């Protein structure tokens, strides 16, 4: 692995060298266009090869990290590339797996990319591992999560006001599952904890960011009928 990294580093200056040669020649030469075009082609080719290699390393890293997932920052740090480059590589790699001829894909939920088996694999996986049930969240849990996700940061009392029931136990359960976290305290009397959702919440609900949440349905007199008589 270290060896690979070295060859990549070596490749980088090489490309730059190619480019300068090319620029130099362009100034110098009216003779024929062919050499400069050829240089350009070569530089492009080298860049491409380099990218392919980097993408393969990224793929390898993703394979190793498994469900821990990999952030853009981690990839850029460990591969000595810019975050922008890392993002491009993630994008390119992601596209390689989109096709249905592949049984798994790369998904980014929250801040992390990870390999996930595709949904159509689940049927067979269920038989292989004798999975008999899928984990479910209760209505109460889902409602509490929805309130936190849309209103965060929010205190326990505010959640209770909306749901009309105590939220103490539910908050502790969701916290233990890692779906929500305490994030500072409110200025309200007693300085109660404020809660917000975690990266794991993003993963569990296939979200990249909270902006992706569907808009809350607006309620007014006009659409009241649809709501209650549909």
């Amino acid at each position, binding site marked *: 692995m270290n060896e690979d990294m070295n060859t990549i580093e070596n490749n980088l200056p090489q490309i730059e060298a190619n480019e300068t040669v090319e620029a130099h020649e362009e100034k110098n030469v009216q003779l024929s266009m062919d050499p400069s075009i050829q240089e350009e082609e070569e530089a492009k080719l080298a860049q491409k090869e380099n990218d392919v290699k980097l993408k393969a390393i990224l793929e390898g890293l993703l394979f190793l990290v498994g469900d821990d997932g990999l952030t853009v920052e981690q990839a850029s740090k460990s591969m000595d590339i810019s975050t922008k480059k890392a993002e491009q590589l993630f994008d390119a790699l992601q596209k390689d797996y989109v096709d249905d001829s592949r049984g798994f894909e790369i998904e980014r939920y929250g801040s992390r990319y990870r390999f996930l088996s595709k949904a159509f694999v689940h049927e067979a996986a269920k038989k292989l591992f004798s999975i008999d049930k899928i984990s479910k969240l209760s209505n109460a849990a889902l409602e509490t999560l929805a309130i936190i996700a*849309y209103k965060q940061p929010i205190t326990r009392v505010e959640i209770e006001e909306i749901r*009309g029931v105590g939220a103490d136990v539910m908050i502790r359960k969701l916290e233990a599952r890692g779906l929500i976290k305490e994030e500072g305290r409110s200025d309200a009397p007693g300085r109660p904890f404020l809660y917000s959702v975690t990266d794991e919440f993003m993963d569990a609900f*296939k979200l990249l960011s909270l902006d992706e*949440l569907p808009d*809350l349905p607006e309620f007014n007199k006009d659409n009241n009928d649809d709501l209650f008589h549909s």
Partner: protein
Amino acid sequence: MNEFKVTIDTFDGPLDLMLHLIKEKQLDLMNLDMNVLTDQYIAYLNQMENLHLEIASEYLSELATLIEYKSKKMLPGKHEDLDDSYEEDPKDRLVKRLLEYQQFKEASEDLNALYESRQLQLSRPLSDEVDQWMKEDESLPYEGNPYDLMRAMKRVMMRMRLSVPQESTYTVKEVSMEDRELKVRAMLDKLPKTFRFENLLEDVHDMPMFIATFLSVLDLARQHTLAFTVDENDVIWFTRGGNAE
């Protein structure tokens, strides 16, 4: 004497029940007939009581609000009281709450669809071999709360379930925590100063043994023989010597 008692969770609280009643009786939420709602609400609670179902206190507190409203309305000549008060009309307030609750109820259905589709996709755990490369951190800060530990334990259990081949025969074995603790103490001598919880699980193949091991390390931590911490990757680290004062 011994009455059969169950608690049911059909409705997620009084607001959920009210929304159900409103829908069932086709009441107009924007022009809510509080009398009908209150009567239906009381009828439902009575029914629950007849079935010996336990009624959660939240239902009763909302009932009190409904009845207060109704009784105020029934008192002759007292109507201006409601209008003059600086407080929001209780009916408007209730409608507002119902609307807001309905909003989140719908949003939670969207979330559920996302959750269920995510459940169809599975990932694999971090490569085992990576453990061997990991740097050992000698200075373990003691922080985190019991929930961090719970979450980390869940993860260890999941990994164990994935890594151990499925056994199809069952044998009843008594595992005593004391025996296990002795074994764990013996294992400590062979382990580096700082190690992971998984290091203690090499000879563990079933749940009772696993739990005994976990209880032993908790006991060892209590005796300050070991100290533990949970890092950001939910890995449980132990260090020998602990944080004995």
